[in-house]
C-alpha cells in the first residue's frame, strides 16, 4: 500500500460512523455529568455508575429477553447509585471527590461480584439481546450522511439530540436558571425560595440516569454481553470531556465527539498499521494519553460553576 491508499483506508466514512458508534456512551455519561456539575456537584464515580448500568442492562435483557427493559433497568440502577452518592455527598456533606472514588470502587467490586454470583463464572455474561439498529430508507442514497447515520443503534439519534435539548433547558427555562444558580451561588437560590439541596439531588439523579444508560449502551448495543470492567475508563474520559467542554452543552458534546473520534481512529489504526511498527498495547493507551494531553493544553479557568465541590450548608454564612 502506498501512502494515499493507507490514508484512504484510515480516513473515510467508516471512521466517522464508528466515531458516532463509540461516542454515544461517552456523550450520555458526559451530558449526565454536565447536568450534575452544573448544579455544583462533582461526581467522580460516573465510571462506576456506568458499570452498574452496563450490568443492569445486560441482566434486564438476559432475564426478560427485551433489551428495552434492560435499558430502563440500567437507568433505574444508575439513579440508585446516584441516590447513594447524593445522600452521602449532598446530605451528609462528605467530600465529593472521596465519595465519588468510593462509589467507583464499590461499583467495580459489586458489578464483578454480582456477575460471578449470578452466572457462576467470571469474566463475561452470556450473550444477550441487543437494541435494534435503525435503518432509514430516505438516507440510503444520501452520500456521507447515509453511511454515517444509517444502521446505528436506535438510541443514537435521540442521544445526539440531548445536547440541543439541554442547551434549551439550561438557558431558556426557569429550571435551567435554578440548576445553574445551585452551582454558582446556592445561597442566593435559597433566598428566592428554592431548595438547592433538592435541585442538586435532582441533577445528580438525572446525571446518573444518563450514565447508567450510557453504560447499558456498551453492553446491549455496542456489544451484546457484560464483561468485567467493560467501561474501561470511559467514565473518566466523559469527566474529562465535561472539563474540556467548559461544562456547557455544545462544548461538552464536541469534546465527547473528539474523544470518540480518537478512540475510533485508534481502533482503525490498529487494523491498518502492522503490530511490528506500532504495537496494539500502545494504541490502547492512546485514548487516555490523548485525553490527558487535551486537558493539559486546556486553559486553567474552565468556566465551570463557582460552587462546585462544596457542600451546601444552610447554617453557614
Amino acid at each position, binding site marked *: 500500500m502506498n501512502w494515499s491508499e493507507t490514508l484512504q483506508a484510515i480516513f473515510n466514512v467508516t471512521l466517522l460512523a464508528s466515531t458516532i458508534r463509540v461516542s454515544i456512551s461517552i456523550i450520555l455519561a458526559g451530558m449526565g455529568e454536565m447536568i450534575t456539575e452544573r448544579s455544583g456537584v462533582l461526581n*467522580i464515580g460516573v465510571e*462506576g455508575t456506568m458499570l452498574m448500568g452496563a450490568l443492569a442492562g445486560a441482566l434486564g435483557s438476559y432475564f426478560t429477553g427485551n433489551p428495552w427493559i434492560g435499558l430502563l433497568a440500567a437507568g433505574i440502577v444508575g439513579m440508585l447509585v446516584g441516590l*447513594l452518592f447524593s445522600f*452521602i455527598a449532598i446530605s*451528609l*456533606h*462528605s*467530600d465529593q*471527590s*472521596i*465519595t*465519588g*472514588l*468510593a*462509589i*467507583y*470502587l*464499590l*461499583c*467495580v*467490586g*459489586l458489578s*464483578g*461480584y*454480582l*456477575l*460471578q*454470583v449470578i452466572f457462576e463464572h*467470571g469474566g463475561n455474561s452470556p450473550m444477550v439481546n441487543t437494541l435494534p439498529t435503525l435503518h432509514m430508507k430516505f438516507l440510503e442514497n444520501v452520500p456521507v450522511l447515509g453511511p454515517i447515520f444509517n444502521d446505528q443503534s436506535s438510541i443514537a439519534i435521540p442521544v445526539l439530540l440531548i445536547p440541543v435539548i439541554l442547551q434549551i433547558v439550561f438557558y431558556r427555562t426557569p429550571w435551567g436558571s435554578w440548576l445553574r444558580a445551585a452551582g454558582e451561588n446556592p445561597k442566593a437560590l435559597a433566598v428566592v425560595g428554592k431548595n438547592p439541596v433538592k435541585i442538586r439531588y435532582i441533577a445528580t439523579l438525572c446525571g446518573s440516569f444518563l450514565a447508567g444508560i450510557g453504560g447499558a449502551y456498551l453492553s446491549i448495543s455496542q456489544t451484546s454481553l457484560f464483561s*468485567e470492567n467493560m467501561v*474501561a*475508563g470511559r467514565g*473518566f*474520559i466523559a*469527566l*474529562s470531556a465535561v*472539563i474540556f467542554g467548559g461544562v456547557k452543552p455544545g462544548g461538552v458534546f464536541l469534546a465527547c465527539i473528539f474523544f470518540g473520534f480518537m478512540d475510533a481512529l485508534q481502533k482503525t489504526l490498529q487494523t491498518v498499521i502492522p503490530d511490528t511498527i506500532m*504495537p496494539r*498495547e*500502545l494504541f*490502547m*493507551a492512546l485514548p*487516555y*494519553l490523548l*485525553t*490527558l494531553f487535551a*486537558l*493539559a493544553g*486546556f486553559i*486553567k*479557568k*474552565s468556566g465551570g460553576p463557582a460552587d462546585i465541590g462544596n457542600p451546601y450548608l444552610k447554617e453557614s454564612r
Partner: protein
Amino acid sequence: MHTIRKFFLKRQPVFITVIAVVLAFFVVGIILAATDRNPFNAVYYFVRGAFGNVVNTADTISRVIPLTIAGIAFLVGAQCAVFNVGIEGQLLLGAMASAIVGYVVKLPAYLHLPLMLLSGALVGGLYGLIPAWLKTKRGVNEILSTIMLNYPATYLTHFLVLKVIPIEGVVPATPFIEDTARLPILIEGTQLHAGVFVMILVVIFAYFLLYKTSLGYEMRAVGYNKTAARFHGIPVEKRMNFAFFLSGALAGLAGAVEVAGVHYRFLDQFSPGYGYDSITVALVGLLNPFGVVISATLFGALKTGILEMSVYSGIPRQLTTLINGIVVLFVAAKDILGGGYARIFRGKDTYEAEKEISQ
C-alpha cells in the same frame, strides 16, 4: 465517668473510624447473605485463610508490606492536599524498572539491592510528576489525571513483557532477577521476606518527615488550608509537586519490594490492585503512618483470607474491591456518626472535658 468520657471524646476520630469499618463489614455481610452466601462461613474461612497457620500468617504479613508502603504513598500525598489515585500505575512502572535493573545489572548485593529498589522508586516518582505538572501548572484535577495514567502504565508493562523483553516459560514476565537483587526470605517455606524492614523504615521516615521536619510541617499546612499556607509564605505548588513525587516514589518502591521479595521478576498483572487498596488503607488509617500499619494489617488479612474464602465457600474474589468501596464510603460518611457519638459521651461535665481537650 469523667475520665472515661474524656478518653472516648479525645479519641473520637479513631473510634468513629472503627465503628464505620465495622458497619461497612456488617453491610458486606448483608450483601453476602442476600446473594445466598453464608457470612459466618465466610468469616470462618477468612480467618483460617489469613491466620490459620504459620504459612498463612506469614503470607498475610507479606501482603501487609506492599499495602503499608503504598498506603504511606497515598498518605504523604493526601496530607499535602494531593489525592494520588495513580498508585497502581506508579507501582507497576516501579516494579518494571526494578525488575529490569535486577536482571540486567551485575553488582554485589550491597549495591545491587539498593540500586534496584531506588530505580523503582525513581521511576514511580517521575511518573508521579506528570499529574503534578498537570495539577499545579494546568489545574487538572489530580484524581482524574492519576486514574487515567493507570491505563497507559498497565498497557506499557503489558507490552514490555509480551513483546520486548524475552519471555522465560509460558507466563508473560521478565527474566528472573539476580540473586544479589533479592530480599531474603525470613521464614523458610513462607513468603515473608526482608521487605518488612523496608516497610518499617518507610513508616518511620514518613512519621519523621511529616511531624518532625519543617518541610513536613509545610506540607501538612498546605493540606490543611492552601490559602492560609500561601499567606504564610509557603510555596504551595512546590510542596505539592514534592508530595506528588514522593507519593509516586513510595508507590514505585512498593512495586520494587514486591519484585525483590516475592516474585523475583516482573510478572504481568502481579498486583491484585494494591494501588487501589492503598487509598482505603490510608483513609482507614486516618492518614497517620502508624494507623496505616494497623489498617494495612486488616486489609492484608483480607487479601489472603479472601483467597481461601473464594476456594472453599464459593464467594467471588471480587468481594475485595466491593469491601474497599463500602469501607471508603462509610469512612467518607463517618461524620454522620460523629454527632451521635459526641452525644453519648457528653454529659454535664462536657464543658470541662472539652476544655481539657482543647488545652
